[in-house]
């Protein structure tokens, strides 16, 4: 179930978030859905710093899904 209020739309509908394996791994471990994270890298790529910003702004990360 979506754990939070509707996030701001940052991508066109159907557009998948783009992130490298390391960023995806960390997001998974932190329980962050990349769909909701702004991508500041080249071509909208989500980079580690975006995860930092996201974490800082949302406070508590949601718990990981098993």
């Amino acid at each position, binding site marked *: 179930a979506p754990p939070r209020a509707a996030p701001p739309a940052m991508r066109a509908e159907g*557009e998948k978030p*783009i*992130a*490298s*394996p390391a960023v*995806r*791994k960390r997001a*998974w*471990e932190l329980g962050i859905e990349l769909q909701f994270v702004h991508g500041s890298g*080249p*071509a909208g*790529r989500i980079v580690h710093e975006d995860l930092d910003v996201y974490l800082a702004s949302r406070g508590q990360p949601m718990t*990981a899904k*098993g």
Partner: protein
Amino acid sequence: GGADLECDMLVLGAGPGGYSAAFRAADLGMKVVLVERYATLGGVCLNVGCIPSKALLHVAAVMDEVSHFEALGISYGKPKVELDKLRAHKAKVVGKLTGGLSAMAKMRKVTVVRGLGQFVDPYHLQVEETSGAALEKTGKKQTIKFRNAIIAAGSQAVQLPFMPKDPRVVDSTGALELAGNPKRMLILGGGIIGLEMGTVYSTLGARLDVVEMLDGLMQGADRDLVRVWQKMNTPRFDNIMLKTKTVGAEATKDGILVKFEGEQAPKEPQLYDLVLQAVGRSPNGKKIGAEKAGVTVSDRGFIPVDIQMRTNVPHIFAIGDIVGQPMLAHKAVHEAHVAAEVAAGENSAFNARVIPSVAYTDPEVAWVGLTEDQAKAQGIAIKKGHFPWTASGRAIANTRDEGFTKLLFDAQTHRILGGGIVGTHAGDMIGEVALAIEMGADEIDIGKTIHPHPTLGESIGMAAEIAHGTCTDVPPVRKS
């Protein structure tokens, strides 16, 4: 019940999946027991799969190359072939690797238990000790108690029920033994494993037939890639029988007499010195007492798992061939790491986007991610960069310019979705395409990455430039 041995982590099967899981778990501080029925570690891949096949394929590739060297001013006569020495070479290669695994298991204090394992309940495995080169039972049994388990029991070659039991009818394991020098060989099944073994036997002198039920060889790869391989390899074959079934076989004094039915079936039964069954592999899920542990196994013998490689029983994981396609060693290894890490309390998951495939034929065929066939079937709009190796200085210098490199990009975002390479060493280079996909690279990222000249690898940069319209090593794009 009582247990002879207790551990944090039991791993069943010591193939690429099993040993990697065991080693990773040990590195994470767990007490690990690794159960394997055969004498050496490494499973199918190291003992009777990836490694011995590539040892022979390499020798074959060099022999084939040398056979064209007279035109370059370097003439060798026909070589003297000593099969026993070639077998010894293959055994030495395998021995180096399996020996290395044993040593690394010791360094990691992984306890290796030799025998046939069967679950008896969700926390116990019973092992019937085996010995010798095969699976002789010594009669001894022991019970191992585990907190977590990883099932990595792999797969087995499918045997057609109507094939006679005869030394001239083999699966890939038998074919790798190189028992003799067949004149006429039949490959049942047009997949990678059969075509690789056929390549070796053909270079050593056999004429090949291949029979395949579907309408093309090397299913899964785009047809344009396969076509290049097939054109180069047609001289090896007497008959390529597509959309054709093998319906019967009989062992006679003169050979194995095989009957076919279907579109391209010869009318008469054909006689072969060697028949290789390479019609697929079936998972070992039903042979390990999984039901006693409460682990769900599918009808076909696969064990369903989630993205963390957990079976339906939370402390029991499964990895490798036994969890599904693609049945490839590198998939098993990556799954193994995830399972071990999750069992050790890390929050890992298998979230690689793509798993590359390689046929180690000559030329090699390698592909990863979306194929053109898939793009068409799924209605995905793509932009293609196709670099023919006739424009590659290195391929021409190697007298092997039959190949090509193609990259497929999303037509909208220009991000790479997939790629394929056919040509010598394709498999060594497809990793870059996989990395590009995982990183979300686009045609500019790849094209503006400076690749060294003259290499085959630069064909990847060129293909990206072609997609982008900036390549100057191919004819200009027609303006519309």
